[in-house]
Protein backbone atom coordinates (compact mmCIF):
# COMPACT_ATOMS: atom_id res chain seq x y z
CA UNK A 1 0.00 0.00 0.00
CA UNK A 2 1.54 3.24 -1.07
CA UNK A 3 0.56 6.44 0.62
CA UNK A 4 1.57 9.52 -1.25
CA UNK A 5 2.79 12.32 0.91
CA UNK A 6 1.08 15.65 1.13
CA UNK A 7 4.30 17.55 0.60
CA UNK A 8 6.42 17.64 -2.53
CA UNK A 9 9.34 15.27 -2.71
CA UNK A 10 8.19 13.07 0.11
CA UNK A 11 6.17 9.92 0.09
CA UNK A 12 5.69 7.18 2.60
CA UNK A 13 5.09 3.54 1.88
CA UNK A 14 3.48 1.28 4.40
CA UNK A 15 4.29 -2.36 3.97
CA UNK A 16 1.30 -4.28 5.25
CA UNK A 17 3.13 -7.23 6.62
CA UNK A 18 6.48 -5.83 7.61
CA UNK A 19 9.58 -4.05 6.53
CA UNK A 20 12.16 -6.82 6.41
CA UNK A 21 12.57 -7.80 2.81
CA UNK A 22 12.53 -11.46 1.84
CA UNK A 23 14.79 -10.76 -1.09
CA UNK A 24 17.58 -9.68 1.22
CA UNK A 25 17.27 -12.80 3.33
CA UNK A 26 20.78 -14.12 3.51
CA UNK A 27 20.95 -15.87 6.83
CA UNK A 28 22.03 -19.09 5.19
CA UNK A 29 25.46 -17.65 4.45
CA UNK A 30 26.28 -15.78 7.62
CA UNK A 31 30.02 -15.91 7.05
CA UNK A 32 29.49 -14.17 3.75
CA UNK A 33 27.23 -11.64 5.42
CA UNK A 34 29.91 -10.86 7.98
CA UNK A 35 32.63 -10.65 5.34
CA UNK A 36 30.53 -8.21 3.34
CA UNK A 37 29.88 -6.12 6.43
CA UNK A 38 33.60 -5.99 7.11
CA UNK A 39 34.16 -4.70 3.59
CA UNK A 40 31.69 -1.88 4.17
CA UNK A 41 28.73 -3.32 2.24
CA UNK A 42 25.75 -1.26 3.36
CA UNK A 43 23.19 -3.79 2.18
CA UNK A 44 24.85 -6.46 4.31
CA UNK A 45 24.75 -4.14 7.29
CA UNK A 46 21.07 -3.50 6.65
CA UNK A 47 20.36 -7.24 6.69
CA UNK A 48 22.29 -7.54 9.95
CA UNK A 49 20.47 -4.56 11.43
CA UNK A 50 17.01 -5.74 10.49
CA UNK A 51 17.36 -9.43 11.28
CA UNK A 52 19.77 -9.72 14.18
CA UNK A 53 19.50 -6.56 16.29
CA UNK A 54 15.89 -7.24 17.42
CA UNK A 55 16.86 -10.80 18.35
CA UNK A 56 19.80 -9.61 20.46
CA UNK A 57 17.55 -7.07 22.16
CA UNK A 58 14.97 -9.75 22.94
CA UNK A 59 17.75 -11.98 24.29
CA UNK A 60 19.03 -9.16 26.53
CA UNK A 61 15.74 -7.92 27.91
CA UNK A 62 14.74 -11.47 28.89
CA UNK A 63 17.88 -11.61 31.06
CA UNK A 64 17.46 -8.17 32.57
CA UNK A 65 14.02 -8.61 34.10
CA UNK A 66 12.49 -6.42 31.43
CA UNK A 67 14.65 -3.40 32.34
CA UNK A 68 14.38 -1.60 28.99
CA UNK A 69 16.84 1.17 29.82
CA UNK A 70 19.53 -1.27 30.88
CA UNK A 71 18.78 -3.48 27.89
CA UNK A 72 19.23 -0.46 25.61
CA UNK A 73 22.59 0.36 27.14
CA UNK A 74 23.86 -3.20 27.11
CA UNK A 75 22.66 -4.10 23.62
CA UNK A 76 24.05 -0.85 22.26
CA UNK A 77 27.35 -1.40 23.97
CA UNK A 78 27.49 -5.03 22.81
CA UNK A 79 26.69 -4.25 19.19
CA UNK A 80 29.05 -1.29 18.99
CA UNK A 81 31.83 -3.61 20.11
CA UNK A 82 30.65 -6.47 17.90
CA UNK A 83 30.84 -4.43 14.71
CA UNK A 84 34.48 -3.67 15.43
CA UNK A 85 35.26 -7.34 16.18
CA UNK A 86 33.54 -9.03 13.24
CA UNK A 87 36.87 -10.54 12.23
CA UNK A 88 36.72 -12.83 15.25
CA UNK A 89 33.53 -14.49 14.02
CA UNK A 90 34.68 -17.64 12.22
CA UNK A 91 31.38 -18.81 10.83
CA UNK A 92 31.53 -22.27 12.37
CA UNK A 93 28.37 -21.65 14.37
CA UNK A 94 25.29 -19.47 14.18
CA UNK A 95 25.90 -15.75 14.07
CA UNK A 96 23.09 -15.20 16.55
CA UNK A 97 24.79 -17.60 18.95
CA UNK A 98 27.95 -15.53 18.78
CA UNK A 99 26.03 -12.29 19.21
CA UNK A 100 24.14 -13.66 22.20
CA UNK A 101 27.39 -14.86 23.76
CA UNK A 102 28.84 -11.36 23.39
CA UNK A 103 25.67 -9.90 24.89
CA UNK A 104 25.73 -12.36 27.76
CA UNK A 105 29.34 -11.38 28.50
CA UNK A 106 28.40 -7.72 28.45
CA UNK A 107 25.58 -8.38 30.91
CA UNK A 108 27.95 -10.32 33.15
CA UNK A 109 30.52 -7.50 33.01
CA UNK A 110 27.86 -4.98 33.90
CA UNK A 111 26.77 -6.85 37.00
CA UNK A 112 30.30 -7.67 38.02
CA UNK A 113 31.28 -4.05 37.47
CA UNK A 114 34.58 -5.08 35.92
CA UNK A 115 35.68 -2.33 33.53
CA UNK A 116 37.35 -4.46 30.91
CA UNK A 117 36.63 -5.60 27.40
CA UNK A 118 34.29 -8.51 26.96
CA UNK A 119 35.86 -11.62 25.54
CA UNK A 120 35.25 -11.47 21.84
CA UNK A 121 38.32 -13.57 21.22
CA UNK A 122 38.46 -17.31 21.70
CA UNK A 123 36.73 -19.66 19.32
CA UNK A 124 34.38 -16.95 18.24
CA UNK A 125 31.18 -18.94 18.63
CA UNK A 126 29.30 -19.94 21.69
CA UNK A 127 25.96 -21.45 20.84
CA UNK A 128 25.44 -22.22 24.50
CA UNK A 129 24.51 -18.59 24.94
CA UNK A 130 21.30 -19.33 23.12
CA UNK A 131 18.31 -20.61 25.07
CA UNK A 132 18.17 -24.39 24.89
CA UNK A 133 14.94 -25.96 23.65
CA UNK A 134 13.82 -28.76 25.94
CA UNK A 135 12.87 -31.15 23.21
CA UNK A 136 13.73 -34.16 25.35
CA UNK A 137 11.30 -33.14 28.08
CA UNK A 138 7.85 -33.17 26.57
CA UNK A 139 6.14 -32.23 29.81
CA UNK A 140 8.13 -29.09 29.93
CA UNK A 141 7.62 -28.13 26.34
CA UNK A 142 4.56 -25.99 26.83
CA UNK A 143 6.02 -24.35 29.92
CA UNK A 144 9.61 -23.96 28.84
CA UNK A 145 10.42 -20.28 28.72
CA UNK A 146 13.67 -21.10 26.96
CA UNK A 147 11.88 -22.96 24.18
CA UNK A 148 9.46 -20.10 23.73
CA UNK A 149 12.31 -17.63 23.71
CA UNK A 150 14.18 -19.60 21.07
CA UNK A 151 11.04 -19.75 18.93
CA UNK A 152 10.69 -15.98 19.24
CA UNK A 153 14.35 -15.41 18.40
CA UNK A 154 13.92 -17.56 15.30
CA UNK A 155 10.93 -15.41 14.30
CA UNK A 156 12.99 -12.26 14.90
CA UNK A 157 15.61 -13.51 12.47
CA UNK A 158 13.13 -14.52 9.78
CA UNK A 159 11.98 -11.95 7.26
CA UNK A 160 9.20 -10.05 9.00
CA UNK A 161 6.71 -11.03 6.33
CA UNK A 162 7.34 -14.72 6.95
CA UNK A 163 7.33 -14.32 10.74
CA UNK A 164 4.04 -12.48 10.60
CA UNK A 165 2.22 -15.01 8.47
CA UNK A 166 3.46 -17.83 10.70
CA UNK A 167 2.11 -15.96 13.70
CA UNK A 168 -1.23 -15.36 12.06
CA UNK A 169 -1.54 -18.96 10.93
CA UNK A 170 -0.38 -20.82 14.02
CA UNK A 171 -0.64 -18.44 16.98
CA UNK A 172 -3.77 -16.53 16.02
CA UNK A 173 -5.37 -19.37 14.06
CA UNK A 174 -6.16 -17.15 11.08
CA UNK A 175 -7.29 -18.96 7.94
CA UNK A 176 -5.21 -18.94 4.78
CA UNK A 177 -7.99 -17.03 3.07
CA UNK A 178 -7.90 -14.30 5.71
CA UNK A 179 -4.08 -14.15 5.57
CA UNK A 180 -4.27 -13.80 1.81
CA UNK A 181 -6.62 -10.85 2.23
CA UNK A 182 -4.34 -9.24 4.79
CA UNK A 183 -1.34 -9.71 2.53
CA UNK A 184 -3.10 -8.73 -0.65
CA UNK A 185 -2.05 -12.06 -2.21
CA UNK A 186 -3.90 -14.90 -3.86
CA UNK A 187 -4.52 -17.95 -1.70
CA UNK A 188 -2.03 -19.90 -3.78
CA UNK A 189 0.64 -17.25 -3.29
CA UNK A 190 -0.16 -17.20 0.43
CA UNK A 191 0.27 -20.97 0.66
CA UNK A 192 3.60 -20.57 -1.10
CA UNK A 193 4.60 -17.83 1.33
CA UNK A 194 3.67 -20.04 4.28
CA UNK A 195 5.71 -22.89 2.83
CA UNK A 196 8.74 -20.64 2.45
CA UNK A 197 8.20 -19.39 5.97
CA UNK A 198 8.11 -22.92 7.40
CA UNK A 199 11.23 -23.88 5.46
CA UNK A 200 13.04 -20.81 6.76
CA UNK A 201 11.81 -21.43 10.31
CA UNK A 202 12.98 -25.04 10.14
CA UNK A 203 16.43 -24.07 8.88
CA UNK A 204 16.98 -21.32 11.41
CA UNK A 205 15.63 -23.48 14.22
CA UNK A 206 18.05 -26.25 13.30
CA UNK A 207 20.98 -23.86 12.95
CA UNK A 208 20.38 -22.48 16.41
CA UNK A 209 20.45 -25.94 17.93
CA UNK A 210 16.75 -26.73 18.01
CA UNK A 211 15.76 -30.31 17.37
CA UNK A 212 12.65 -32.22 16.44
CA UNK A 213 9.79 -32.21 18.92
CA UNK A 214 9.04 -35.64 20.38
CA UNK A 215 5.75 -37.27 19.48
CA UNK A 216 4.51 -37.16 23.04
CA UNK A 217 5.03 -33.44 23.14
CA UNK A 218 3.14 -33.12 19.92
CA UNK A 219 0.16 -34.94 21.28
CA UNK A 220 0.25 -32.87 24.49
CA UNK A 221 0.52 -29.70 22.54
CA UNK A 222 -2.70 -30.61 20.84
Amino acid sequence: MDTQSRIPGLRARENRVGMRDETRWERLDEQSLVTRMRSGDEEAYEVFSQHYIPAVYRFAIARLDGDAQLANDIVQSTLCKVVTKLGTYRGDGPLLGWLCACCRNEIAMHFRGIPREVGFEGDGVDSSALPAPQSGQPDALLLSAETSELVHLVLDILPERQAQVLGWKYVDGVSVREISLRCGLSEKATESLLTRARVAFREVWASLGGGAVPARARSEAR
Partner: protein
Amino acid sequence: MNDERYEAAGNVLSDDQIGELLRASGPRADLPSLELAAIRAKTCAAWQNESRHSRSAAKRTWITRIAIAAAVGGALLLVWMLRGRVAAPAPVEIATVEFVSGHVTATRDGARTDLVSRGDRIVEGSTITTEGHAARAALRIASGVELRLDEATKATIVSASEFELTGGVVYFDTGVSAGPGKSNGIVVRTESGIARDIGTRFEVRVPDGARAMVVRVRDGRVSVENNGGRHEVAAEKELVVASNGQVTTREIRGWGAGWEWILATSPRYEIEGRTLSEFLAWVARETGWTVRFSDPAIESRARVIVLHGTIEGTRPDEAPFAVLAGSGLEGKLADGVLEVREAN
Protein backbone atom coordinates in the same frame (compact mmCIF):
# COMPACT_ATOMS: atom_id res chain seq x y z
CA MET B 1 10.10 -25.77 -1.85
CA ASN B 2 8.87 -29.16 -0.89
CA ASP B 3 8.19 -29.71 2.79
CA GLU B 4 7.98 -33.48 2.33
CA ARG B 5 11.76 -33.95 2.50
CA TYR B 6 11.88 -32.42 5.94
CA GLU B 7 9.22 -34.73 7.29
CA ALA B 8 11.12 -37.66 5.91
CA ALA B 9 14.37 -36.60 7.51
CA GLY B 10 13.40 -37.65 11.03
CA ASN B 11 15.53 -35.20 13.00
CA VAL B 12 14.09 -31.98 11.72
CA LEU B 13 10.80 -30.29 12.39
CA SER B 14 7.74 -31.32 10.43
CA ASP B 15 5.14 -28.73 9.45
CA ASP B 16 2.93 -29.90 12.32
CA GLN B 17 5.77 -29.57 14.80
CA ILE B 18 6.46 -26.04 13.65
CA GLY B 19 2.82 -25.21 14.21
CA GLU B 20 2.89 -26.80 17.66
CA LEU B 21 6.01 -24.90 18.66
CA LEU B 22 4.54 -21.62 17.53
CA ARG B 23 1.23 -22.24 19.29
CA ALA B 24 2.94 -23.35 22.50
CA SER B 25 5.23 -20.32 22.49
CA GLY B 26 2.46 -17.81 22.02
CA PRO B 27 2.79 -14.36 20.48
CA ARG B 28 6.08 -12.46 20.53
CA ALA B 29 6.18 -9.43 22.77
CA ASP B 30 6.54 -6.24 20.76
CA LEU B 31 9.97 -4.65 21.02
CA PRO B 32 10.18 -0.88 21.58
CA SER B 33 10.64 0.60 18.14
CA LEU B 34 12.19 3.89 19.16
CA GLU B 35 14.81 2.23 21.32
CA LEU B 36 15.61 -0.28 18.60
CA ALA B 37 15.89 2.52 16.08
CA ALA B 38 18.30 4.36 18.34
CA ILE B 39 20.38 1.21 18.85
CA ARG B 40 20.43 0.65 15.11
CA ALA B 41 21.56 4.20 14.49
CA LYS B 42 24.38 3.98 17.01
CA THR B 43 25.48 0.56 15.83
CA CYS B 44 25.44 1.84 12.27
CA ALA B 45 27.66 4.78 13.24
CA ALA B 46 30.11 2.42 14.93
CA TRP B 47 30.06 0.08 11.94
CA GLN B 48 30.60 2.89 9.45
CA ASN B 49 33.46 4.22 11.50
CA GLU B 50 35.02 0.77 11.70
CA SER B 51 34.54 0.21 7.97
CA ARG B 52 36.25 3.48 7.15
CA HIS B 53 39.08 2.60 9.45
CA SER B 54 39.43 -0.91 7.99
CA ARG B 55 39.45 0.38 4.45
CA SER B 56 42.11 2.93 5.32
CA ALA B 57 44.15 0.26 7.05
CA ALA B 58 43.84 -2.08 4.06
CA LYS B 59 44.86 0.70 1.75
CA ARG B 60 47.79 1.54 3.97
CA THR B 61 48.84 -2.13 4.00
CA TRP B 62 48.76 -2.31 0.21
CA ILE B 63 50.69 0.91 -0.15
CA THR B 64 53.21 -0.37 2.37
CA ARG B 65 53.76 -3.54 0.33
CA ILE B 66 54.39 -1.54 -2.80
CA ALA B 67 56.74 0.73 -0.93
CA ILE B 68 58.70 -2.22 0.44
CA ALA B 69 58.98 -3.76 -3.01
CA ALA B 70 60.23 -0.50 -4.41
CA ALA B 71 62.65 -0.13 -1.55
CA VAL B 72 64.29 -3.47 -2.32
CA GLY B 73 65.35 -2.16 -5.72
CA GLY B 74 66.29 1.35 -4.83
CA ALA B 75 67.12 1.44 -1.14
CA LEU B 76 70.56 2.93 -1.49
CA LEU B 77 69.34 5.61 -3.84
CA LEU B 78 66.50 6.46 -1.51
CA VAL B 79 68.80 6.71 1.51
CA TRP B 80 71.10 8.95 -0.46
CA MET B 81 68.21 11.15 -1.55
CA LEU B 82 66.81 11.45 1.94
CA ARG B 83 70.04 11.74 3.88
CA GLY B 84 70.03 14.62 6.26
CA ARG B 85 66.33 15.03 5.93
CA VAL B 86 63.83 13.75 8.44
CA ALA B 87 60.36 13.72 7.04
CA ALA B 88 57.71 14.94 9.41
CA PRO B 89 55.00 12.38 10.10
CA ALA B 90 51.99 12.83 7.86
CA PRO B 91 49.13 14.52 9.69
CA VAL B 92 46.38 12.14 10.71
CA GLU B 93 42.89 12.84 9.48
CA ILE B 94 40.79 13.09 12.59
CA ALA B 95 37.43 14.52 11.56
CA THR B 96 35.08 15.12 8.67
CA VAL B 97 32.77 18.06 8.17
CA GLU B 98 29.09 17.07 8.27
CA PHE B 99 27.60 20.54 8.27
CA VAL B 100 29.04 24.00 7.82
CA SER B 101 27.57 27.48 7.54
CA GLY B 102 29.30 30.85 7.37
CA HIS B 103 33.05 31.30 7.63
CA VAL B 104 34.67 28.36 9.39
CA THR B 105 38.38 27.64 9.31
CA ALA B 106 40.78 24.92 10.39
CA THR B 107 44.28 26.01 11.36
CA ARG B 108 47.28 23.79 12.00
CA ASP B 109 50.94 24.73 12.18
CA GLY B 110 50.10 28.17 10.87
CA ALA B 111 48.36 26.84 7.77
CA ARG B 112 44.74 27.88 7.53
CA THR B 113 42.07 26.11 5.49
CA ASP B 114 38.52 27.21 4.89
CA LEU B 115 35.96 24.53 5.64
CA VAL B 116 33.38 24.96 2.97
CA SER B 117 31.46 21.79 2.41
CA ARG B 118 30.33 18.47 3.77
CA GLY B 119 33.08 15.88 3.50
CA ASP B 120 35.98 18.30 4.05
CA ARG B 121 38.62 16.59 6.17
CA ILE B 122 40.39 17.89 9.23
CA VAL B 123 43.72 16.69 10.59
CA GLU B 124 44.65 16.05 14.20
CA GLY B 125 45.77 19.12 16.10
CA SER B 126 43.67 21.53 14.05
CA THR B 127 42.03 24.52 15.66
CA ILE B 128 38.55 25.13 14.34
CA THR B 129 37.28 28.68 14.38
CA THR B 130 33.78 29.84 13.55
CA GLU B 131 34.02 33.46 12.53
CA GLY B 132 31.22 35.94 12.13
CA HIS B 133 27.46 35.72 12.16
CA ALA B 134 25.85 32.30 11.66
CA ALA B 135 29.21 30.58 11.29
CA ARG B 136 28.66 27.12 12.70
CA ALA B 137 29.85 23.60 12.04
CA ALA B 138 29.17 19.97 12.82
CA LEU B 139 32.08 17.54 12.60
CA ARG B 140 32.21 13.77 12.81
CA ILE B 141 35.29 12.72 14.74
CA ALA B 142 37.02 9.49 13.68
CA SER B 143 35.88 7.83 16.89
CA GLY B 144 32.26 8.34 15.83
CA VAL B 145 31.67 11.25 18.18
CA GLU B 146 29.84 14.24 16.77
CA LEU B 147 31.18 17.68 17.62
CA ARG B 148 29.22 20.86 16.92
CA LEU B 149 30.52 24.39 17.18
CA ASP B 150 28.34 27.45 17.64
CA GLU B 151 29.09 30.97 16.43
CA ALA B 152 32.31 32.66 17.61
CA THR B 153 33.89 29.45 18.82
CA LYS B 154 37.52 28.41 18.84
CA ALA B 155 38.32 24.81 19.70
CA THR B 156 41.29 22.55 19.06
CA ILE B 157 40.94 18.87 18.25
CA VAL B 158 43.98 17.57 20.10
CA SER B 159 43.01 13.95 19.47
CA ALA B 160 39.87 11.88 18.89
CA SER B 161 39.04 12.15 22.57
CA GLU B 162 40.68 15.37 23.73
CA PHE B 163 39.54 18.88 22.91
CA GLU B 164 40.55 22.35 24.02
CA LEU B 165 37.92 25.07 24.09
CA THR B 166 39.36 28.56 24.04
CA GLY B 167 36.06 30.38 23.61
CA GLY B 168 32.51 29.89 22.44
CA VAL B 169 30.34 26.78 22.65
CA VAL B 170 30.84 23.16 21.69
CA TYR B 171 28.33 20.32 21.86
CA PHE B 172 29.15 16.64 21.90
CA ASP B 173 26.96 13.74 20.90
CA THR B 174 29.10 10.71 21.50
CA GLY B 175 26.64 8.58 19.56
CA VAL B 176 28.35 5.35 20.49
CA SER B 177 27.86 4.99 24.20
CA ALA B 178 30.57 3.19 26.07
CA GLY B 179 27.85 1.45 28.05
CA PRO B 180 26.12 2.00 31.35
CA GLY B 181 28.14 3.95 33.83
CA LYS B 182 31.24 4.09 31.67
CA SER B 183 32.97 7.04 30.12
CA ASN B 184 33.29 7.53 26.40
CA GLY B 185 36.60 9.18 27.19
CA ILE B 186 35.80 12.64 25.85
CA VAL B 187 37.79 15.33 27.63
CA VAL B 188 37.17 19.04 27.07
CA ARG B 189 39.75 21.38 28.57
CA THR B 190 39.04 25.03 29.20
CA GLU B 191 40.92 27.64 31.16
CA SER B 192 38.47 27.19 34.02
CA GLY B 193 38.30 23.43 34.23
CA ILE B 194 38.01 20.08 32.55
CA ALA B 195 34.80 18.32 31.53
CA ARG B 196 34.79 14.56 31.08
CA ASP B 197 31.76 12.77 29.69
CA ILE B 198 30.02 9.94 31.44
CA GLY B 199 27.18 10.01 28.97
CA THR B 200 26.26 10.93 25.49
CA ARG B 201 25.18 14.54 24.86
CA PHE B 202 26.48 17.68 26.49
CA GLU B 203 27.56 21.24 25.82
CA VAL B 204 30.56 23.19 27.12
CA ARG B 205 30.57 26.97 26.91
CA VAL B 206 33.30 29.49 27.62
CA PRO B 207 31.55 32.88 27.79
CA ASP B 208 33.14 35.60 25.73
CA GLY B 209 35.90 37.35 27.62
CA ALA B 210 35.18 35.55 30.87
CA ARG B 211 37.37 33.10 32.71
CA ALA B 212 34.39 30.90 33.34
CA MET B 213 32.82 27.69 32.10
CA VAL B 214 29.25 26.46 31.68
CA VAL B 215 28.45 22.78 31.21
CA ARG B 216 24.93 21.73 30.20
CA VAL B 217 24.02 18.07 30.02
CA ARG B 218 21.19 16.92 27.84
CA ASP B 219 21.59 13.20 28.29
CA GLY B 220 23.86 11.05 30.48
CA ARG B 221 26.35 12.64 32.86
CA VAL B 222 29.49 14.76 32.76
CA SER B 223 32.24 15.11 35.33
CA VAL B 224 33.76 18.59 35.76
CA GLU B 225 37.08 19.23 37.47
CA ASN B 226 38.29 22.61 38.60
CA ASN B 227 40.61 23.83 41.32
CA GLY B 228 41.17 20.27 42.49
CA GLY B 229 37.43 19.69 42.98
CA ARG B 230 35.23 17.30 41.04
CA HIS B 231 31.52 17.73 40.31
CA GLU B 232 29.11 15.46 38.49
CA VAL B 233 26.49 17.02 36.27
CA ALA B 234 23.44 14.89 35.57
CA ALA B 235 21.05 15.04 32.61
CA GLU B 236 19.02 18.25 32.35
CA LYS B 237 21.37 20.05 34.73
CA GLU B 238 23.67 23.00 34.18
CA LEU B 239 26.88 23.62 36.08
CA VAL B 240 28.56 27.03 36.09
CA VAL B 241 32.16 27.56 37.12
CA ALA B 242 32.30 31.32 37.70
CA SER B 243 35.36 33.50 37.20
CA ASN B 244 36.03 33.40 40.93
CA GLY B 245 35.94 29.60 40.91
CA GLN B 246 32.54 29.32 42.56
CA VAL B 247 30.48 26.40 41.29
CA THR B 248 26.70 26.43 41.03
CA THR B 249 24.20 24.07 39.44
CA ARG B 250 20.61 24.41 38.32
CA GLU B 251 18.01 22.42 36.48
CA ILE B 252 17.45 23.02 32.79
CA ARG B 253 15.30 21.49 30.09
CA GLY B 254 16.78 19.18 27.52
CA TRP B 255 14.74 20.82 24.79
CA GLY B 256 13.62 24.27 23.74
CA ALA B 257 15.26 27.59 22.99
CA GLY B 258 18.41 26.81 24.96
CA TRP B 259 19.34 24.22 22.37
CA GLU B 260 18.29 26.23 19.33
CA TRP B 261 21.78 26.37 17.86
CA ILE B 262 22.03 22.58 17.93
CA LEU B 263 19.07 22.42 15.57
CA ALA B 264 20.74 24.95 13.29
CA THR B 265 23.84 22.74 13.00
CA SER B 266 22.06 19.46 12.47
CA PRO B 267 23.81 17.47 9.74
CA ARG B 268 21.74 16.35 6.79
CA TYR B 269 19.57 13.35 7.61
CA GLU B 270 18.61 11.03 4.77
CA ILE B 271 15.11 9.66 5.26
CA GLU B 272 15.09 7.57 2.09
CA GLY B 273 14.46 3.94 3.03
CA ARG B 274 14.29 4.58 6.76
CA THR B 275 11.29 3.67 8.86
CA LEU B 276 9.17 6.32 10.51
CA SER B 277 10.36 4.96 13.88
CA GLU B 278 13.99 5.51 12.97
CA PHE B 279 13.21 9.01 11.78
CA LEU B 280 11.37 9.87 15.00
CA ALA B 281 14.27 8.53 17.06
CA TRP B 282 16.54 10.94 15.22
CA VAL B 283 14.10 13.79 15.81
CA ALA B 284 14.03 12.99 19.53
CA ARG B 285 17.82 12.95 19.65
CA GLU B 286 18.22 16.27 17.88
CA THR B 287 15.41 18.17 19.55
CA GLY B 288 15.45 16.62 23.01
CA TRP B 289 11.72 15.96 22.69
CA THR B 290 10.06 12.84 23.99
CA VAL B 291 8.10 11.04 21.29
CA ARG B 292 4.88 9.35 22.36
CA PHE B 293 2.26 7.52 20.37
CA SER B 294 -1.39 8.05 21.10
CA ASP B 295 -2.07 4.41 20.38
CA PRO B 296 0.10 1.26 20.38
CA ALA B 297 -1.26 0.47 16.92
CA ILE B 298 0.27 3.71 15.62
CA GLU B 299 3.60 2.79 17.18
CA SER B 300 3.40 -0.55 15.38
CA ARG B 301 2.61 1.22 12.12
CA ALA B 302 5.57 3.53 12.59
CA ARG B 303 7.82 0.50 12.56
CA VAL B 304 6.69 -0.54 9.09
CA ILE B 305 6.21 2.79 7.38
CA VAL B 306 9.18 3.26 5.07
CA LEU B 307 9.98 6.86 4.16
CA HIS B 308 11.02 8.14 0.78
CA GLY B 309 12.14 11.50 -0.47
CA THR B 310 14.11 14.14 1.33
CA ILE B 311 13.78 16.59 4.19
CA GLU B 312 16.71 18.66 3.07
CA GLY B 313 16.26 22.27 4.09
CA THR B 314 14.00 21.53 7.03
CA ARG B 315 15.18 21.52 10.63
CA PRO B 316 14.70 18.59 12.99
CA ASP B 317 11.97 20.50 14.82
CA GLU B 318 10.09 21.16 11.57
CA ALA B 319 10.59 17.95 9.64
CA PRO B 320 8.41 15.59 11.71
CA PHE B 321 5.25 17.54 11.02
CA ALA B 322 5.77 17.28 7.28
CA VAL B 323 6.83 13.66 7.40
CA LEU B 324 3.95 12.63 9.67
CA ALA B 325 1.48 14.34 7.36
CA GLY B 326 2.91 12.34 4.49
CA SER B 327 2.27 9.18 6.46
CA GLY B 328 -1.37 9.92 7.28
CA LEU B 329 -0.46 10.91 10.84
CA GLU B 330 0.03 14.15 12.70
CA GLY B 331 2.15 15.40 15.56
CA LYS B 332 1.13 17.57 18.47
CA LEU B 333 3.89 19.20 20.46
CA ALA B 334 3.39 20.27 24.07
CA ASP B 335 5.99 20.69 26.83
CA GLY B 336 8.69 18.88 24.93
CA VAL B 337 6.48 15.89 24.16
CA LEU B 338 5.65 15.12 20.56
CA GLU B 339 2.49 13.06 20.47
CA VAL B 340 2.03 11.10 17.26
CA ARG B 341 -1.56 10.34 16.41
CA GLU B 342 -3.94 9.64 13.57
CA ALA B 343 -4.48 12.64 11.30
CA ASN B 344 -7.88 14.22 11.66
